[in-house]
Structure formats: structure tokens, C-alpha cells
């Protein structure tokens, strides 16, 4: 164990090594590690944000689907109601039309009967007059006996 100039040489070597490390080794390595740490942190934050956005989107989608479903069922219900209404309306209309037609037919019939009756009456009166004329041998003057004939016709 004898101290000698080696100690100085060793100090110089040490100094040079520290300088080289300071210059070429330490900064790039530490910088790379720091950068990577930041990148990882950024990546994690981005993933977090993405997850959040995804969650929000899925909530929104659910809401939209629920609304659409509600709307659809409402529309269907409305359509059902409307169709029932239309059927009812059609039925009522048809019934009314039928009644109206029936009424018309009845009125027509009554009119016809009345007219037939009137004609018949007229004819009977004329026949009667003719018959009477023939029986009496002379022509009954229709004009002269108009009043009589009319009364007759009415009584028939």
C-alpha cells in the first residue's frame, strides 16, 4: 500500500469520464426517458378522453333510440286511431246514404202510386162519362159536365 502518482492519473481519468458522461451520455438518455414518460402520460390521457367520449356517445345513442321508439309507437297508435275513425265515418256515411236512398225510393213510390191513382180515376171518370153517354145516347158535354165529372173522379 504505497501512494504514488497513480492517484493523480486516476483523478484525471475520473474527471475525463465525468466530462464525457456529462457531454455525451447523460443528457440524451435522460431526455429520451423524459420524453417517453411524457408520451405515455399523453397516451393515457388520450385513452381516458376516448373512453369518456365513447361513453357519452353511447348514452346519446341510447337516448336517440329510446326517443325514436317512443315516436314510432306514438305514430302507430295514431294511425290505428285514425283508421278506426275512418271506418266508423265510412259506416255512418253508408248508413245515412242508405237511409236517404230508401227515403227517396219510398217518396218516389208514393208519388207513383198517387199519380197512378189519379190517372186511374181520370180514366174511370172518362169511361163512366163515355158509358153514360152511350147509355143516354148523346154526348155528354165534357165541358158542361166537367164539374160533375171531377166530383165523380174524386169520389172514386
Amino acid at each position, binding site marked *: *500500500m504505497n501512494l*504514488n*502518482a497513480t*492517484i493523480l*492519473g*486516476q483523478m484525471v481519468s475520473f474527471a475525463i469520464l465525468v466530462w464525457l458522461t456529462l457531454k*455525451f451520455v447523460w443528457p440524451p438518455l435522460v431526455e*429520451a426517458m*423524459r420524453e417517453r414518460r411524457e408520451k405515455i402520460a399523453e397516451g393515457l390521457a388520450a385513452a381516458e378522453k376516448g373512453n369518456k367520449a365513447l361513453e357519452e356517445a353511447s348514452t346519446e345513442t341510447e337516448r336517440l333510440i329510446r326517443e325514436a321508439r317512443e315516436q314510432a309507437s306514438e305514430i302507430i297508435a295514431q294511425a290505428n286511431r285514425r283508421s278506426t275513425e275512418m271506418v266508423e265515418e265510412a259506416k255512418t256515411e253508408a248508413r245515412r246514404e242508405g237511409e236517404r236512398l230508401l227515403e227517396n225510393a219510398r217518396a218516389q213510390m208514393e208519388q207513383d202510386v198517387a199519380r197512378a191513382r189519379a190517372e186511374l180515376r181520370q180514366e174511370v171518370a172518362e169511361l163512366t162519362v163515355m158509358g153514360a153517354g152511350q147509355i143516354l145516347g148523346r154526348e155528354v158535354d165534357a165541358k158542361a159536365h166537367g164539374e160533375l165529372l171531377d166530383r165523380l173522379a174524386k169520389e172514386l
Partner: protein
Amino acid sequence: MATYDSPGEYIDHHLGHWVIGEKGSFWSLHVDTMLFSVLLGAVFFFIFYAAARKATSGTPGGLQNFIETVVDFVDSNIKDSYHGTNRLIGPIALTIFVWVLLMNIVKLIPYDLFPWLASFVGVDYLRINPTSDINATAGVALGVFVMIFWFGFKVKGVGGVGKEFFTSPFSAQSLPFKIVLAPINLFFKTVEEIVKPFSLAMRLFGNMYAGSLIFTLIAISPWYMQWALGLGWSLFKLLVIVLQAFVFMALTIVYLSMAEEDH
């Protein structure tokens, strides 16, 4: 392989250094220590430089991944015990940890291999484990010693550091007491500062030198015991090697942190 007349000669031979200059004088050089510490320092630098040059913040390759594990380990130790802002702290801690670790690891290379190889090129003494040479550990420790003052100067100024030699560890409120305490403080503070590099150097040197000595003793034990003793001691040394490198680095960080703190 060279043969030895006695165990004592074998031990002497393995604990001797390859020296340039007059042996025993200060102006001589342990060539083996210098050679292998510089070589291992270069290994450290080029491996780390290779990783740093292509360092990417994307997916790291195998080498970068490994290097980053080491850097991260050192960095987390710094974050735990250093609270200043000096950007020298990282390089110093990393250099000490990896360099000392490499200088310790070569101890696990079969003990006789390099001295045997060296004997072919006419080198009689070769110790490849620089940290079992007090000069190597003291050199690094003195480097740390200088850095302790440099860190202090940067934060407190030369005057601030100088003043601390008279006002700590014992502080007083009134002037007379301050004057009385000044020489006592000077003594304690000086001892405190000198003890730091001294303990750093002696701890590492002691551990590694003792390890070498034991390996030498194992090497001269009977051949049928060598493998068991060698294996056991190597496994134990594996622990010590990493631990001592870590302790050297951790203490350096703590000392540098203390240098910036106000007392």
C-alpha cells in the same frame, strides 16, 4: 505457469504492481492499475455512448433498455437523496457506479489468467483489479472531494464555504462564544471533510484488497479444496462487488447534497 518456491513468494508476486519509476517514491506509476482502469472506463463510456447516440423516446432496443435501467436506478437514487440543481450530479453518480462496478467485476476473472498471459510479454507483475489498489480508490475519492467543494462554491460561494469552517458543526449566538468556538469548529469541520474521501477510498480498497488476498490464499490451498472455496468466495464477492459500487455512489450523492445544504 511460473513456479514458486514458497507460498509467501506467490502471495508477494500476486499483490505486487507493475511499476514504472522508482519503487517506493511518489513519482512512480502503477501501470496495471492505470491501464485497466482506463480500459474499463473506455468500456463504460463506449457502451453507454452507443446507447445514448441512438437513444429514442420510442420503443427502446435491447441495449438502450438495459442502459436505461441503470440510468434510471442511478437517477432514482439521486432523486432520493439530492435536492439541489447541479447538473453534474447525474454524470458523477453514473460514472462512479458503473466504472467502480466494472473495476470490481474484473476481480472475478480467474486469478492467475492475466498475470500468466502477461508473463509471456515480459511483464512480471500485473494486477487487473484497479479497486484493490489504494491509488485507484483514493483517486476517485479525491475527485469526489474536489466536487464536494465545487458544489458548495456554486451554491454558497467561496466565502460561504469558508465561513462554515468556523461556524459549524457548533454554532453560537453571541460573538464571544463564536470566537471561542471558531478554532474548535475549524478542527472538527476539517476532520469531517477529510474523513469523507478517506472513508470512501478506504472502504472500497479494503473490501477489494481483502477479497484479492483471500483469492490468493484460496489459490495456494490444496487443489481439492480450491473449487469449493473459490466458488463460495466468488459468489460472496459478487454481492460485495455490486454493493461496494452502490455504496460509493450513494455516499457520493449524499456528500454532494450535504455540501449544498446550509448548516
